[in-house]
């Protein structure tokens, strides 16, 4: 099902065009890296503030109201450019163990943000300048780990050690959902 979809996606003219373009892919990838810098750079400093390791005299509500909007902009550009990068090379990326791990981490990051906003941030007025609640610190540590993992796994997608067209062990084959006859659906 998904296999058919990514194969179809990779055969669309715009996907081929993007993949073979000299500059478009490069420009999108550069924009993706800059968006990640904006997204992770700002969210990491909010996390470090929660942990009491940076901007200690800034009220937490200031960090959330004045810095998180920039995080959201970074996230939006990161997702938009990321989708385009996937669209340019869908089949290989779909079978990348790094991409699959990155998606799991993105999901974990999203759940963490959702929990933080729902349970922790609501009563921020009570600890705006006081000690951060333990739950918020846990959320900050998870956030730092998850987004660091997203950066590392994202960078590794470019490397082909675990590609399906190379001999792989049972775990990689299963995790990457390698096609039974390697090479048939791969570019």
């Amino acid at each position, binding site marked *: 099902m998904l296999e058919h979809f990514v194969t179809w996606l990779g055969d669309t003219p715009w996907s081929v065009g993007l993949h073979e373009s000299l500059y478009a892919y*490069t420009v999108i*990838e*550069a924009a993706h*890296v*800059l968006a*990640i*810098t*904006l997204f*992770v*750079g*700002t969210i*990491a*400093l909010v996390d*470090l503030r929660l942990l009491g390791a*940076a*901007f*200690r*005299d*800034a*009220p937490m509500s*200031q*960090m959330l109201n*004045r*810095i998180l909007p*920039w995080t959201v902009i970074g996230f939006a550009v990161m997702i938009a450019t990321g989708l385009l990068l996937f669209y340019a090379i869908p089949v290989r990326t779909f079978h990348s163990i790094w991409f699959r791990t990155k998606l799991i981490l993105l999901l974990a990051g999203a759940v963490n943000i959702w929990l933080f906003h729902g349970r922790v941030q609501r009563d921020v007025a009570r600890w705006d300048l006081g000690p951060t609640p333990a739950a918020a610190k846990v959320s900050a540590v998870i956030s730092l780990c998850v*987004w*660091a993992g997203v*950066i*590392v796994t994202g*960078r*590794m997608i470019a*490397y082909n*050690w675990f590609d399906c067209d190379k001999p792989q062990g049972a775990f990689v084959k299963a995790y990457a959902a390698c096609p039974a006859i390697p090479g048939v659906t791969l570019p």
Partner: protein
Amino acid sequence: MSLFHTFEGFEALGVSQAIRGSVWLFPAIEALHLLALATLGGTILMVDLRLMGAGLNTQPTVAVERDARPWFLGALAVMLATGVPLALSEAVKLYDKPSFWVKMAALALALAFALAVRVWLVKRVEAGSPAAWATAMLSLTLWLTVAVAGRWIGFS
């Protein structure tokens, strides 16, 4: 000895050979370089956003700069500690790439501006003023040039 010979010497160093001889070392150092980039970018933005009146408005600009500095310097140290061995390992290839020299020139300017000029200016310009905007824009432009030229090294 010419500059090119110096670069050949860099590539012959033990650390360069170790990185080239390993499948994992270059990507691993590269990943660390990117993690530090995100942190560095965040700290630069905190100060430049404050200068433009778009950041932590309840805090004085000087305080934001002072609070951001340890993380800025820490991230910078990791950037250099990872960037230098990456560059040494492929020094001869880099010698011929304009993007590498653009990055180094922009880095020198960005560092001089951040460490000598901007720390002086944050104490004197009023946040949101044209002078503050000019300071922030110059800072962001210099660092963007470093990042974009850096990404370009991988493609050219």
